[in-house]
């Protein structure tokens, strides 16, 4: 009988969970601070560049989808989800409206690296016609081995 009592006294294996709440809150704070809604969720291969500068937050976004997705142009004010446009005139209207609100408005061009340059040229021309001053060409980091 003594033996059984001895077995009862054995310490139960426990996982210490008191600090879990702290860790979880830390993670929540991290995600809240870094939270950013992607206005254009089109999957694409961005071109790779060595020089990369941080693009301004809330800049207007113009995206050009990969050729296999029709090289569709989408526009977004940077706060709302990107909407497709069917003609280049719509890009001019969109950009002109944004520039009218803020003459120093920055634009991000997010285009697939396989997109035909003729399409990109149309967008650049539309932005020039709309008197846009600053464009950021979104890219991925080029690594030293590919340099």
């Amino acid at each position: 009988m003594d033996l059984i009592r001895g077995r009862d006294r054995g310490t139960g294996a426990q996982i210490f969970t008191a600090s879990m709440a702290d860790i979880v809150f830390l993670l929540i704070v991290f995600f809240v601070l870094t939270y950013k809604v992607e206005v254009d969720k089109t999957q694409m291969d961005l071109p790779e560049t060595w020089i990369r500068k941080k693009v301004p937050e809330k800049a207007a976004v113009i995206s050009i989808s990969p050729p296999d997705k029709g090289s569709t142009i989408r526009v977004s004010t940077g706060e709302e989800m990107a909407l497709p446009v069917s003609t280049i005139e719509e890009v001019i209207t969109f950009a002109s409206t944004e520039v009218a609100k803020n003459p120093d408005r920055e634009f991000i061009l997010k285009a697939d690296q396989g997109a035909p340059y003729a399409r990109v040229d149309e967008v650049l021309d539309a932005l020039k016609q709309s008197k846009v001053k600053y464009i950021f060409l979104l890219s991925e980091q080029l690594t030293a081995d590919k340099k």
Partner: protein
Amino acid sequence: MNIQKKEIASEIFTGSMADISFLLIIYFMITSAFSATRGLDFALPEETDTPEIKQEDSIEVHVTPGGAIEVDKKGLPRDGLLPYVLEKLQQNPDKPVILRTDPDATYGDMISVFDLLRRANEEWTDEQGNPLYKDVNGDPLVEIKTISIPTQREIENIWNLLGMG
């Protein structure tokens, strides 16, 4: 009669806090976008301050379909682009570089050459940022001052003006 007061300990129930927290973490993890937030900056010229550029005053870089480059109408390997531009800018540091891309080329082809031109600043300075080269006036040469990317419409306008359209 002595009535004993029953003391009810006040406490906030925190048992479900971990569940709520995990739910929030999952929400933020799924909706948070780790999107690319960097890229090449490019300032477009304002029409009022655009100087008239004569073709002979500039370095013309033409990106052909496939990504090969022609500089001043001569084929050149990519490694040779910056040394060529450096040589020209040493004679005239204000020479603009005109980057013209064939409409049949891809955006990636154009970006890689534009990135190469922008890398001049890194290539022409040492690790401390001191200039490695000087121009004909003895001034340090650390970057390409003007890189112009004309659109097809602008090129056609110039051709029309020159009566070549």
